[in-house]
């Protein structure tokens, strides 16, 4: 081993505590980077592979009823590779192990062979036998949640008729990687089933013999998607088609795409934070090494080592930090990635979703690690290279405190000598003080950011369930019905209040822009289900015209007072022009809203409603659910308390864990910064502290100088930390907001208090640990040595 290499290893060993801090912080940042980039790539790859293997549809269309003979016509449309016409409908399931009826989407399987579009991956059992109309497949998430197996029976109310089905197999579909009930934003696997049955069985049940009401289409590679869509629409529009839509309107794929983009944000945002702090730690520790190594640098140069050789010698330390950080990051990132993959498997139902960090991911992580370590070391290394040997060998002059600090002069006079030492050091070396304060401030900021996630989610859930959705049950009818149905609903056992609503799928257009969205008709004076703005105000439906949610208005480039065209996507395809009454900011959803009366009149179905919100007498709950299971003409029944319970449980389990992970990463960062800053302060002040000890100052008095300085810097960092942390938290809410969720920034005093007190505690503990070194100060050794 060359002597310089031996020196390098010993130097690193000497600064091992610093090195451990740097490696830990780098490791945390790289772990998040590797997890997010690797997970994103794994998810993307799995999705592509799954879609390719199972022939995921490029277009989907639902319609009222079209004859089977149209299938070949569609097949011949330009760019179409394969078409699967299907019968699709909704049903309620009556399961003995669940009190409430469960909603289900039913989809037909081809008479022969497997679906050519949206094929299924069977995870257990066998395909249904077309000769047995009762046989069915169910989606894996539902089967797992309710412990259903091949052979389990299922009682369904199909189109008003109760029918007993038998499960023959459990399946996954590329169409339902992410499964939510219609109108729901979050998955509740035990509350919603996807059931695949024989074509004839469903044709019988839905009175669709020789016809279909749903089609999925796969396009040839390089096909013109617009031309294909036009051709399909031309064929199916006369049959009540709502218009073919691409993958961007398919719920499951849309959620997946949003998840991928959020992983992208995560991959860039959090690691950047950590890498900056790691660079900062490298900067202060290398700066300190170079300062203590002055004489050695002079000596090496006097021996004939070139500036470059000296620079390389010190740069190697940074490379070693980068390498160790990378190793720690890969190890932690892989564990973290596998954990996240396990969590994703609960939400995204792929046949196989495994985390793997690809070579490009690892190269990216390595580049980030060396960039952070290199940038951090740059200053110090350049200083070492530039140091003239004669100057390096001469004893350094004491820092000149006569410069600067004029403003604080009077203030300093009023302090005792120890406090004056603290103040003058901070004022004389503002950059050094600012670097330490910045590091501590960043640690507090990232804790503020991580603490804000749960506060925001809790707030959203509180608003969603506490203010907006105050009903106990939402009943959705299969088709809009006369308001008279409300009387039937009112007569269900235990119903206290009933509020009708209407929902129409429509295409909004303005100039050349066209957006398909849901248009809600809200009852005036509603008390159960209300539209809540970001300022928590209740938004009443407009007396005239339509409210547009901001994301929808943005897409349409519509403003209050503009006229827009709406076109009903089903049924009679009513077209009408309405005025935009205003733009609103709901927290959840990107729809449009009218008064119930105006909407039903507009659709030329005055008084017809799509469903109702119900408030129930808890004492009659069992009787209500039992009756509901017998009720035909219902498409779905959503139980708000069940949804809330399931969401809060999910949130506590997953979001809580994620927050704990990020908080512990942030804590590592805070500890690293604090310890490093305390070590450096001690190293710089060692001689002064030893002098004070020799003069007869007690350990406590001497510790005051050391701990005082770092605590003052920590306190000075607070305004920056709070402002920057808040700014980042607000920015994060924007980054993570999607079309459907406008995350609010929530000021959570407890989160701020935790972020600040935790970091200050870290700083204090670090300073106290380092203070131990004051007790062990070799007073004579320090004082007899030249600076």
């Amino acid at each position, binding site marked *: 081993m060359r002597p310089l290499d031996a020196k390098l290893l010993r130097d690193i060993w000497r600064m091992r505590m610093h090195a451990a801090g740097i490696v830990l912080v780098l490791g945390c940042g790289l772990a998040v980077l590797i997890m997010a980039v690797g997970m994103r790539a794994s998810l993307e790859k799995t999705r592509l592979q799954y879609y390719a293997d199972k022939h995921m549809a490029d277009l989907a269309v639902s319609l009222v009823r079209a004859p089977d003979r149209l299938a070949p016509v569609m097949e011949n449309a330009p760019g179409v590779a394969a078409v699967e016409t299907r019968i699709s409908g909704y049903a309620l399931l009556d399961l003995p192990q669940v009190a409430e009826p469960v909603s289900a989407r039913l989809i037909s399987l081809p008479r022969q062979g497997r679906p050519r579009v949206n094929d299924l991956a069977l995870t257990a059992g066998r395909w249904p036998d077309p000769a047995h109309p009762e046989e069915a497949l169910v989606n894996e998430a539902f089967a797992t949640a309710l412990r259903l197996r091949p052979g389990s029976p299922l009682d369904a109310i199909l189109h008003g008729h109760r029918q007993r089905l038998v499960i023959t197999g459990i399946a996954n579909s590329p169409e339902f990687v992410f499964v939510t009930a219609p109108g729901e934003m979050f998955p509740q696997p035990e509350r919603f089933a996807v059931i695949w049955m024989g074509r004839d069985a469903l044709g019988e049940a839905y009175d669709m013999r020789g016809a279909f009401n749903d089609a999925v289409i796969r396009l040839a590679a390089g096909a013109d998607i617009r031309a294909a869509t036009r051709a399909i629409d031309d064929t199916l529009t006369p049959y009540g088609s709502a218009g073919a839509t691409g993958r961007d309107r398919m719920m499951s794929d849309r959620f997946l795409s949003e998840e991928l983009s959020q992983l992208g944000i995560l991959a860039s945002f959090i690691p950047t934070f950590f890498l900056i702090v790691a660079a900062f730690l490298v900067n202060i520790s290398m700066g300190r090494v170079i300062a203590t190594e002055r004489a050695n640098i002079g000596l090496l140069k006097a021996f004939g080592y070139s500036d470059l050789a000296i620079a390389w010698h010190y740069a190697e330390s940074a490379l070693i930090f980068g390498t160790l950080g990378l190793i720690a990051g890969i190890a932690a990132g892989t564990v973290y990635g596998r954990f996240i993959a396990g969590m994703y498997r609960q939400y995204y139902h792929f046949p196989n979703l495994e985390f793997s960090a690809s070579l490009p991911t690892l190269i990216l992580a390595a580049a980030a690690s060396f960039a952070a370590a290199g940038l951090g070391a740059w200053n110090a290394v350049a200083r070492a290279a530039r140091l003239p040997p004669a100057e390096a060998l001469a004893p350094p002059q004491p820092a000149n405190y006569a410069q600067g600090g004029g403003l604080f002069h009077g203030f300093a006079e009023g302090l005792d000598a120890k406090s004056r030492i603290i103040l003058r050091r901070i004022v004389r070396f503002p950059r050094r003080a600012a670097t330490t304060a910045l590091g501590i401030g960043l640690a507090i900021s990232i804790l503020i950011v991580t603490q804000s996630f749960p506060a925001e989610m809790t707030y959203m859930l509180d608003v969603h369930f506490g203010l907006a959705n105050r009903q106990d049950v939402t009943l959705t009818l299969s088709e809009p019905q006369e308001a008279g149905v409300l009387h039937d609903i009112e007569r269900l056992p235990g119903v206290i209040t009933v509020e009708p609503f209407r929902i129409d799928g429509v295409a909004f257009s303005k100039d050349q822009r066209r957006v398909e969205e849901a248009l809600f008709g809200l009852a005036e004076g509603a008390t159960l289900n209300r539209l809540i703005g970001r300022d928590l105000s209740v938004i009443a439906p407009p007396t005239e015209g339509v409210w547009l949610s901001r994301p929808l208005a943005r897409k349409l480039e519509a403003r209050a007072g503009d006229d827009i065209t709406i076109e009903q996507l089903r049924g009679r395809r009513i077209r009408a022009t309405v005025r935009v009454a205003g733009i609103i900011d709901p927290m959840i959803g990107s729809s449009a809203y009218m008064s119930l009366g105006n909407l039903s009149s507009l659709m030329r179905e005055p008084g017809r409603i799509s469903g109702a919100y119900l408030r129930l007498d808890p004492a009659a709950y069992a009787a209500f659910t039992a009756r509901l299971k017998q009720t035909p003409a219902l498409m779905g029944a959503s139980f708000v308390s069940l949804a809330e319970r399931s969401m809060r449980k999910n949130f506590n389990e997953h979001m809580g864990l994620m927050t704990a992970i990020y908080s512990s990463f942030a804590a590592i960062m805070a500890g690293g910064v604090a310890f490093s800053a305390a070590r450096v302060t001690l190293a710089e002040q060692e001689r002064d502290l030893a002098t004070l000890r020799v003069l*007869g100052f007690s350990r406590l008095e001497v510790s005051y100088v050391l701990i005082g300085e770092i605590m003052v810097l920590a306190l000075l960092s607070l305004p920056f930390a709070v402002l920057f942390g808040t700014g980042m938290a607000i920015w994060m809410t924007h980054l993570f907001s999607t079309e459907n969720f406008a995350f609010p920034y929530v000021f959570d005093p407890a989160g701020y208090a935790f972020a600040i007190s935790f970091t200050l505690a870290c700083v204090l503990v670090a300073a106290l640990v380092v203070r131990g070194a004051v007790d062990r100060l070799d007073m004579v050794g320090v004082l007899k040595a030249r600076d």
Partner: protein
Amino acid sequence: MTASFSLRGVNKQYGKGATAVHALSDVSVDIQDGELLMLVGPSGSGKSTLLNILGGLDHATSGEVRFRDALLTAMSDRDLTAYRRRHVGFIFQFYNLIPSLTAHENVDLVREIADNPLSAADALALVGLTGRMDHFPAQLSGGEQQRVAVARAIAKRPAILLCDEPTGALDLQTGAQVLEALSEINRLYKSTTLIITHNADIARMGARVVRFADGRVREIETNATPAKPFELVW
């Protein structure tokens, strides 16, 4: 005259077994109150070790060290801190001023911990630095910095002044100024003053000169007429 220090069979050993270094071996000596004593000898002969033990910065391995009636060798770290605080003034070769405090403030520092200190202005006047009181260490020459260190050491009117090569980093003239200040203080305040030096000529300043070799006291020489600092040449 009463004995300020009384040492009996003092040993100091660093390390154990084969690697043990005997820094002091069986040192017994009495030092009188107000005496100006010079400690000379080659590097590693034990002078600094003795000074550190007398100053309460280090413990003897065995033997007895008494300061007046107090047994230093039996004192805890806390007691030794209090002993330094009350009785001892230190001066090192490399001044060890606090760079962030002015000359005046550096001296004033000890006033925070001493019972009946001199004013910083008086202490600085004694070393001839009245005009440089508000200068920071970086604005002072080496000799001036060392004189501030002397002023700081004497400001608490210490019973004992321990100087470890106080002129080691200074030229002849500034060194003489520092020694003059030390001699003056010894005369005025009767502080027992111990000065380590490598320089045979400087040693002529002391009333007694203790010569060290290999951790032992080889010789104690008495000077009937100690030399004045400005008579010295080195």
